[in-house]
């Protein structure tokens, strides 16, 4: 089991962390749709918070991707 053979396994495990971010984004927008369905006048204010929340959650998914790339670069010597 030399290190360069384990690199793809490491990358796959790191990228599997994105499942949490997918759940998070789904939760944000499902709550957003439900809230707008209850009170349509609040759509503008809630939209602002929804997009801010989406960007923050997607960042975590991209942190997982960055770790996968670090592992890929580490095995490429």
């Amino acid at each position, binding site marked *: 089991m030399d290190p360069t053979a384990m690199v793809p396994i490491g990358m796959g495990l790191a990228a599997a962390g994105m499942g949490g971010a997918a759940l998070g984004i789904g939760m944000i927008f499902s709550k957003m749709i439900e809230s707008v369905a209850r009170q349509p006048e609040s759509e503008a204010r809630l939209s602002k918070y929804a*997009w*801010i929340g*989406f*960007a*923050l959650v*997607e*960042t975590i998914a*991209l*942190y997982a*991707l*960055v770790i996968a790339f670090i592992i890929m670069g580490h095995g490429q010597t």
Partner: protein
Amino acid sequence: MSLDMAGTINHFKVIVYQDIHIGTIDLSISNTVVFMLLAIATVVILLKLAFIRAKVIPGYGQLLGEMLYEFIAKQTTLNIHQDGKDYIPLMFTMFTFILGCNLIGLLPGAFTPTSQLAVTGTLAVGMFGFAIWLRFNKHGWGFFRAFSPQGVPKVLLPLMVPIEIISFLARPVTLALRLFANMTAGHMALGVLAVLGLAAPWFLQWLPLGFTVIQIALEIMIAFIQSYIFVILSCVYIDDALAEH
């Protein structure tokens, strides 16, 4: 054109066009510098053109420019509760600079300056340092009183203060890493899709190459959102620095 995975990283390479060294300071002109200057020039020219014949009742170009300015101005004054309007020039400059740098990478053959951790790191450390300087200016050595939130029983303090300090120091790191990761991941996904599309048999090529169109649309949206998030979070940090405890 290489149809392997190395092609996805190649277009992030920094190419130095002209070496300029003054003493130990490296002022060489690389493609990062060229595209940053192009982005700034585009933003300045577009904003100048929008306001070239300013009327009281605006036409279309002036309306767009005013909408952009008012968007940032409203967010800044809403988020910073003490003299928010002093910080509007700074926030507007940051927003248009980051937006310009993000969007210019979408032209074919161009390079995204904000996909380099050095560029986003400098921006984030600059905003963080500015917030720290503001806090020292206002509170002096009472700077450290912010690390113990109010209403916490004294017993928990030795546990809470290190956590607060660590989350305070993580701010510039997350600010830089968020913008860098978003820009790099977007372009890398585009590269992977393109390689997949070109290496596919002819009857399947429409699928990945069609998806690149959607991916570019997603990138434009992400460029806007990420520059907006950077500015909003900087406003929140400055407000945090100026608030009384």
